[in-house]
């Protein structure tokens, strides 16, 4: 399809669908398909011409389309407790239904009725524990259930900053191991030339992503932070392809033009600006957004989309290792607070909303201390609310509304 003339949002939908279609076609034509953790390095597999699928993004889409409960039920019947991350449960439930279909030729009713985008089963999986440790067991289980190879990029937690050289060296060693595994899986030598090109492409995507997010510094803001949540699909799934770069550039150009013409995300209605700490509540995205918007509160800060600002020097594996371990939730509290402080400052925020996400323990358990530390520095009011990234049961609409209204009262 011709993409000329498409705006940012149209390109997002177009390229997201294209990536999904490419994965399905890859499977049919015998190209390898890899399921990947969202912040695992994509560069190695893409350099080896492997089609990538991202279960976290897939699960988020299912959650947003209200399709999570059926798949959560499948996972729970398999023995996964409700305390397990809902991205993992949705994906393990989906995988189970796909696997049964592949084994029996019969499609389960839950799969037939699911609003989930159809994705192919993987030939290999790749994970990285730079955003949580659930990803290790989750992907090990996928690999065991499907009898496919599992590439693990083990990244040490950064208890102190800056990142030590021995830590970077260790991660470079992990990259070497991943390359060796890929050579064995693909039965051919690793393509270092293509790898360098993919690294360069990834950096161009990341630069446009940073440019887009940076537009929230303007007051009033031309960009509503919830749009970044939606555009995240491409920084996750397409950052090593030109699709992400093209889409972010187009959208950022549009917003810059809007800014010049005095067109803002909330028109004349931007009253207060907040930072949203944590993952979106995908099954209730509309409610969370509208509750804020109705109060004239725009989200202009979030460290979550910033996790994909993976800036490094192409050709320098040590620099790439540093980028993939510098994720703010893979660092000590002091650094996490500092990162969040920068997000709040650059978004010119008046308050902070902390998502106590039942799924993401790593992002949520430190919220209380993070909030206290940050308030000592900036004195800004904050509230926290209970929710979940994909399990709709862990969110209360009235509770969210109360907290947003109370935050607005404190920001007055």
């Amino acid at each position: 399809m011709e993409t000329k003339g498409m705006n940012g949002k149209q390109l997002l939908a177009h390229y997201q669908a294209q990536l999904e279609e490419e994965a399905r076609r890859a499977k049919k034509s015998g190209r390898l398909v890899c399921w990947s953790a969202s912040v695992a390095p994509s560069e190695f597999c893409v350099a080896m011409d492997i089609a990538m699928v991202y279960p976290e993004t897939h699960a988020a889409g299912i959650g947003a389309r209200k399709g999570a409960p059926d798949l959560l039920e499948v996972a729970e019947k398999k023995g996964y407790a409700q305390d397990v991350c809902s991205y993992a449960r949705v994906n393990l439930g989906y995988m189970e239904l796909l696997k049964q279909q592949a084994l029996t030729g019969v499609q389960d009713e839950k799969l037939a009725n699911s609003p989930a985008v159809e994705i192919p089963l993987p030939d290999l999986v790749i994970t990285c524990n730079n955003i949580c440790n659930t990803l290790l067991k989750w992907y090990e289980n996928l690999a065991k259930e499907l009898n496919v190879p599992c590439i693990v990029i083990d990244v040490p937690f950064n208890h102190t900053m800056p990142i030590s050289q021995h830590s970077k060296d260790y991660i470079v060693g992990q990259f070497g191991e991943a390359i060796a595994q890929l050579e064995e899986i693909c039965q051919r030598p690793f393509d270092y030339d293509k790898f360098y090109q993919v690294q360069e492409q990834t950096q161009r995507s990341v630069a446009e992503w940073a440019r887009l997010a940076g537009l929230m510094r303007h007051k009033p803001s031309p960009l509503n932070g919830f749009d970044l949540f939606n555009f995240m699909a491409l920084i996750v799934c397409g950052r090593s392809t030109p699709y992400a770069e093209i889409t972010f550039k187009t959208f950022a150009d549009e917003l810059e033009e809007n800014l010049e013409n005095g067109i803002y995300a909330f028109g004349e209605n931007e009253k207060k600006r907040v930072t949203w700490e944590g993952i979106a509540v995908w099954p209730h995205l509309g409610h969370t957004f509208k509750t804020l918007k109705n109060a004239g509160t725009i989200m202009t800060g979030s460290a979550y989309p910033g996790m994909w600002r993976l800036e490094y020097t192409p050709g320098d594996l040590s620099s790439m290792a540093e980028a993939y371990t510098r994720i703010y939730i893979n660092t000590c509290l002091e650094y996490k607070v500092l990162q969040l402080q920068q997000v709040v400052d650059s978004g010119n925020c008046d308050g902070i909303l902390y998502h106590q996400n039942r799924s993401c323990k790593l992002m949520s358990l430190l919220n209380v201390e993070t909030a206290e530390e940050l308030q000592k520095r900036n004195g800004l009011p904050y509230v926290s609310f209970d929710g979940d990234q994909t399990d709709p049961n862990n969110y209360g609409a009235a509770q969210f509304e109360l907290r947003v209204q109370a935050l607005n009262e404190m920001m007055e």
Partner: protein
Amino acid sequence: MYTMGIDIGSTSSKAVILQDGAQLVATEVVQIGTGSSGPARVLDTILKKTGLDIGDMARIIATGYGRFTFEPAHHQYTEIRCQAKGNNFFCRSARLIIDIGGQDVKAIRLDEKGNVKQFFMNDKCAAGTGRFLEVMSRVMEVEIDQMDYYDERATDPATVSSTCAVFAESEVISQLAAGLLKENIIAGVHQSIASKACALAGRGVIEDELVLCGGVSKNQGVVRAIEKELNRKVFVAPMPQITGALGAAILAYEDVLKEVALKDNERQKG
């Protein structure tokens, strides 16, 4: 000038009529909350009691869980802001409020002007709330207003979970089956509520002037448990169930004054 505050909670509806932002004209409580006839009944009762008409109210502010469903209200504020204002009316030096209502338990920190500085509250969990107390009263076949009587006679308070109301209910049933005295179990239930509320109020020593409000603070057993937990005396708001509605009525008065001042200002400029 009359203003009205109405607090529509999960288990009760409260109304306050105030004259000139300072004089309590009437208060009313109906023990049934949002989604029921409670809000309409409390409005009807307070108007009949005072002989006033709804049109006599210069402003009506609604608060509480059902604040957006009360049509006669001119505006809505959160119960957090209203509790801060209402408790400040009774205790100017209050810097910390513990509000234990039917469904929520909150700790609200105030600045020197009585504005909300920070608040913490329970999330999707009934532990430590009035609803929890109601469930326990039913399990033990002791009326809510009799629980204090039993608590006073406890000799060896039982341990009751403060992390989950459902687990706590199972615990209490087991304790009853094991023959523990109701007096001791009830003291344990009160301790469980105190523990939840004080955990929200803050870590370490709480030195600020503290006010206790919300329907549950009418239970002296809970008050004693909180005092024991904090190792200090606490001040219980007079009429602790209506402090939210009172705050709403004060805010209604202040809003009217602000609007009048704004109009005067504009007139002078014009």
